[in-house]
């Protein structure tokens, strides 16, 4: 599981999740995700390369979303495959952060 960060215009941070966010994968990115949650205001999560998402990974995403929003920021996710999207919807996480199809839609939510 890899996590890459790109700083974009408008104080937006793109977080690219690449791999499997299972128990091991979530542990691998937890620290980086917490740093992002505590320091970035506008966060777009790129889930195009996210192959798997389990409950441990969900907890990491929920924590980031809650922290960013509590600091007055905004967060959205885009590009999730059909299975990952089902996980997000069944868990109700889509009520915490918008899940959209593409990058442009996610950026539009940062305005």
């Amino acid at each position, binding site marked *: 599981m890899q996590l890459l960060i790109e700083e974009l215009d408008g104080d937006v941070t793109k977080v690219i999740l690449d791999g499997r966010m299972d*128990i*091991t994968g979530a542990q691998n990115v937890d620290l980086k995700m917490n740093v992002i949650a505590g320091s970035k205001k506008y966060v777009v999560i790129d889930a195009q390369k996210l*192959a*798997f998402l*389990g409950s441990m990974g969900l907890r990491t995403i929920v924590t980031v979303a809650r922290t960013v929003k509590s600091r007055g920021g905004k967060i959205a996710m885009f590009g999730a495959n*059909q*299975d990952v999207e089902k*996980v997000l919807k069944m*868990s*109700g996480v889509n009520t915490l952060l918008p899940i959209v199809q593409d990058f442009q839609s996610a950026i539009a939510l940062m305005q």
Partner: protein
Amino acid sequence: MTANCAVQTSKDQLIVPSDLDKLTQVLPWVERMACAHAIPAHTQFAMNLCLEEILSNIIRYGYSNEPGHSITVRYSTISKDDFLLVIEDHAPPFNPLTEPLLPIEETLEGKREGGLGIRLFRSFAGNAKYESMPGGNRLSIRFLGTYPAPGEPIA
């Protein structure tokens, strides 16, 4: 998800020790089953998800993270597009099919721990049956290989 079909096996049983770090065995085993039995990608995802949530639950709560226990997972094909996983443990009785789910808002707001994994398991397990066994539990999960076409809504 691309299965690694280079390694074939006829062993349709996996024994997992009561150690969360050993759950890394599950993915390659499911991939081998997928190669050997032509399991579709969406079904593999559902199998991996259910196994991760159920096995981690057994290790954490059933075995209280104590080493020295094990969980047995067996795979079998019922028919084309109909696959079965049977999970057996020696933990105290626990039925994940009837366990009350926490309100989703409480789970997400972090007010109470737990419940998310069981909720996901129930969403992805096509058809499951629980049996309390002498000295343990048996959970049988059937997965149907059919899945909505791209663009169709999923439940």
